[in-house]
């Protein structure tokens, strides 16, 4: 292998000066360049590449990263350095420069990091571990990144990198053990409300909390051992590798008590006074941290919310089962929960009865019962009284029902929105949770627009319908079949002739209908940006009317959404017709009501519509964009290459989830960038409204024949 020649100090300094804009920032790059010049070319390239990528996000972070990473190159695996850089950029994106610099300065690998460790990165393990903990019994938990491992009882927080052990496999196993231990805290009832006040009774509440955590680790380790023997075996191996074993004097006797199958958190609390006096027990990494404030906040909110939800759902259930049971007529419905202790399968089996009759609770009710049971160790009687009509203002308790327009009143916040990532081609990575997306409704305008369009194009419309009708679930007739629903006259005549001539008569005398049921779902994504103002908007609306008219003859599922937005914080998708919605007068009025809005940010729209499409069971899924031009947004850099690359990436993601993507455009310059985004054959240029439905028909034919 030939070694490349290292770059010179001058080369490096020149590059750094440019990326770090020293002309304006006055950063000193001389020393840094000299140090980098001393590295191998391989290391130089790595370091410089990341410095350049980070500099597109923030110069100060790039500079600090370069200086710090320099001394880490020899010690830490590259993947970890990359994760470190990305974590800093994500932090910058979400909370700003100071915390991001904090990440760079507080080197997460100092102290415990293994040399050249192959660390397990949060982004790599998140997906698997999320599924893993969902498979374990209990409340459905979330997983998020935090600086240290802990849980607030709803989310398990794991650090960006786990690099305690040399091999990736072991570090992953450690992440899994950590997630499992945090799950066990929620599952085996570590947290009952009122812990803070218990600890406050001690002279040093922090010490009390630490002892409680240590005692619980003894109890939960044995719970894990009983539930998940295979994992417990892994944990023993990891502990040995980390040199974490042996229990100091009083702790061994606590363990004897807390490892009883019947031991509960109450038993832990009973030992707390004694343990408070004992020396600290060093905990293992996977035991995580105790963040009581977060726990109590999450718990108190959840307990109020779940009580309301349960009572409302039980009221619905009672209404559904016994509509006659009106409260005025005396005897209110009596719900009760019985618990059969079936510890073999994990959770206690909770059985719901209504007026003494057992019933299978709907999934939502079952989950609430489980979650409440985990918090309280039982279901209190007042939770089981169905809510009276209008007893609760559900708006207040619903999780995401806020009207998007209300959310925008006042200062910006992200309630009621869905966050989407965006591809930053300079960073060569996603910006996480970057776009704040909301679905809104187009204000319907009932002005007879659709009727006028149909009138205007009346001759064309009937031709259009015909050509779409030809594509309808084609019933293809197979001839000369050995069995079938009808006689094939041609074949029969031939066979009779054959028979008369003394030849053998064919037995294939039937026709058989073969129905190729097309199972397609189509999503139309309509450009509602400001640039469509004028004839383009008019043309789009006309085209949509014609399109719907044509599609109605097919009976396929289709949806229409408009997209627009101003900056990443205000990405909007306008519902015109949902997939499962019929083509009603209301939909026609919404088409008429389509008005040009703001800018053309496209990635979020493609990602959201991809999710909607992916959720259908259609065999063929199609996303058709109708746009007047290229992606563009108001001064946050979406214009130009950035927007094109993000759109291209979003389309790539869509195709990866099995969706066919096409673009129909009226931008005469589209030839320049559309092939790059959609692929050479997946876009068409039209210059007249009536061409749209015809082009759509072409696309259909290509996909379904």
């Amino acid at each position: 292998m030939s070694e490349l020649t290292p770059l010179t100090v001058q080369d490096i300094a020149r590059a750094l000066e440019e990326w770090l804009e020293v002309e304006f920032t006055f950063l000193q790059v001389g020393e840094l360049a000299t140090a980098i010049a001393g590295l191998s070319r391989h290391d130089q390239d790595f370091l410089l590449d990341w410095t350049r990528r980070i500099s597109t996000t923030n110069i100060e972070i790039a500079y600090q990263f370069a200086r710090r990473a320099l001394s880490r190159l020899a010690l830490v695996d590259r993947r970890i350095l990359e994760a470190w850089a990305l974590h800093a950029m994500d932090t910058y994106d979400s909370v700003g420069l100071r915390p991001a610099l904090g990440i760079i300065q507080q080197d997460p690998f100092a102290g415990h990091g293994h040399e050249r460790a192959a660390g397990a990165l949060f982004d790599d393990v998140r997906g698997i571990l999320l599924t893993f903990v969902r498979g374990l019994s209990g409340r459905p938990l979330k997983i998020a990144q935090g600086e240290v491992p802990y849980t607030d009882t709803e989310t398990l927080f794991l650090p960006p990198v786990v690099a305690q052990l040399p091999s990736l496999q072991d570090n992953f196993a450690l992440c899994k053990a950590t997630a499992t231990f945090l799950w066990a805290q929620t599952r085996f009832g570590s947290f009952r409300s009122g812990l803070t006040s218990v600890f406050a009774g001690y002279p040093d509440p922090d010490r009390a909390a630490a002892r409680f955590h240590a005692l619980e680790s003894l109890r939960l380790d044995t719970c894990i051992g009983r539930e998940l023997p295979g994992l417990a075996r892994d944990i023993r191996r990891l502990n040995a590798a980390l040199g974490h074993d042996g229990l100091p004097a009083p702790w061994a006797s606590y363990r004897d008590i807390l490892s009883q199958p019947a031991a509960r958190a109450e038993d832990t609390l009973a030992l707390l006074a004694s343990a408070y006096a004992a020396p600290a027990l060093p905990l293992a990494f996977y035991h995580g941290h105790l963040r009581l404030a977060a726990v109590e906040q999450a718990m108190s909110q959840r307990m109020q919310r779940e009580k309301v939800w349960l009572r409302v759902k039980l009221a619905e259930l009672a209404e559904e089962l016994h509509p006659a049971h009106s409260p005025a007529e005396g005897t209110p419905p009596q719900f009760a929960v019985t618990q059969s202790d079936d510890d073999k399968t994990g959770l206690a089996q909770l059985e719901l009865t209504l007026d003494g009759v057992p019933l299978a609770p709907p999934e939502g009710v079952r989950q609430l019962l489980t979650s409440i049971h985990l918090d309280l160790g039982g279901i209190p009687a007042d939770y089981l009284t169905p809510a009276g009509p209008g007893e609760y203002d559900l708006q207040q308790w619903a999780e995401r029902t806020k009207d998007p327009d209300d959310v925008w009143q006042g200062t910006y916040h992200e309630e009621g929105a869905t966050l989407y990532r965006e591809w930053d081609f300079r960073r060569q990575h996603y910006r996480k949770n970057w776009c704040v997306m909301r679905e809104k409704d187009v204000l319907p305008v009932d002005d007879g627009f659709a009727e006028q369009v149909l009138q205007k194009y009346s001759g064309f419309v009937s031709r259009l319908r015909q050509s779409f009708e030809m594509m309808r679930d084609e019933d293809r007739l197979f001839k000369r079949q050995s069995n079938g629903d009808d006689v094939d006259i041609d074949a029969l005549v031939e066979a009779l002739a054959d028979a008369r001539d003394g030849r053998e008569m064919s037995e294939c005398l039937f026709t058989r209908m073969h129905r190729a049921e097309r199972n397609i779902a189509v999503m139309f994504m309509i450009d509602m940006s400001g640039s469509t103002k004028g004839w383009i908007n008019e043309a789009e609306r006309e085209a949509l009317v014609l399109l719907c008219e044509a599609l109605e003859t097919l009976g396929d599922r289709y949806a229409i959404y408009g997209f627009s937005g101003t900056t990443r914080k205000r990405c909007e998708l306008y519902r015109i017709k949902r997939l499962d919605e019929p083509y009603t007068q209301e939909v026609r009025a919404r088409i008429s009501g389509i008005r040009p809005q703001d800018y053309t940010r496209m990635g979020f729209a493609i990602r959201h519509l991809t999710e909607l499409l992916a959720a259908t069971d259609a065999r063929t899924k199609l996303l058709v964009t109708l746009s007047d031009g290229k992606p563009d947004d108001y001064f946050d850099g979406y214009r130009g290459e950035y927007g094109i690359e993000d759109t291209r990436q979003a389309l790539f993601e869509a195709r990866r989830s099995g969706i066919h993507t096409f673009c129909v455009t009226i931008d005469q310059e589209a030839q320049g960038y559309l092939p790059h985004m959609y692929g050479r054959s997946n876009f068409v240029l039209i210059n007249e409204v009536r061409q749209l439905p015809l082009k759509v028909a072409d696309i259909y034919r290509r996909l379904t024949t």
Partner: protein
Amino acid sequence: MNARMLKTEEYLVEKEPYYEPVGNEVAIFEAAYRNRLPILLKGPTGCGKTRFMEHMAWRLKRPLVTVSCHDDLTASDLVGRYLVKGGETLWVDGPLTRAARTGGICYLDEIVEARKDTMVVLHPLADDRRVLPIEKLGVLLEANPEFCLAISYNPGYQSVLKDLKQSTRQRFVALEFDYPFPELEKKIIVAETAIDAPVAERLVKFAHMTRNLKGSGLEEGASTRLLVHAAKLIVTGVAPVAACRSAIAQALTDDAEMLAAVQELSSSLF
């Protein structure tokens, strides 16, 4: 071209098929049968519906005709059709007609998979007329008093297309099937495969983990059938984690990350 082969089986069940009742389904089926009511078995795949039908056919001493429905299945496939043999036309009864004539039990498995028009021929058989119109022969076949119609349907695939119409479902006595309770499921696995009880118990636990994932990436959790498969592999000497992967995880998903996660679950248990 050859006559299309239908996936039908018809036989008189001679040996008692092992079936572990979960509730009162045996009594209800018998009562429905005595009253000549058609029966609908609801429930996820692999929870014992087919086995139950075999068991009931044995109990009632009737031949069982099973048809696995698919999206190409037409009314003629069920009722029958003309074939031409050596210049002669020849009528061949379909499985439904055969059962109706001879007093068998006709079990249409996964009925919603069949084409919509297929359902129509069932309607007159499923109400108190109990007749089967055979258009091609121009006759109305009155079902043998011993005839019994049973269909199965998995409400798990929540999809408008795959929903059973009210006009159909309201003609049937419905029996709801689900995976057996843990203790019973364990007993079934042991009975079917002679696996050690503690291993069977962990398999059941594993099944519950995958069932927790229904809706978070899996369409269905592991069925009793898959547990029986895994247990068979284990009894033959395959290591439990490998058996769970081949017999269960791979059957549930093709998604690499989901497979890995399910694998983590089984390796935590065994």
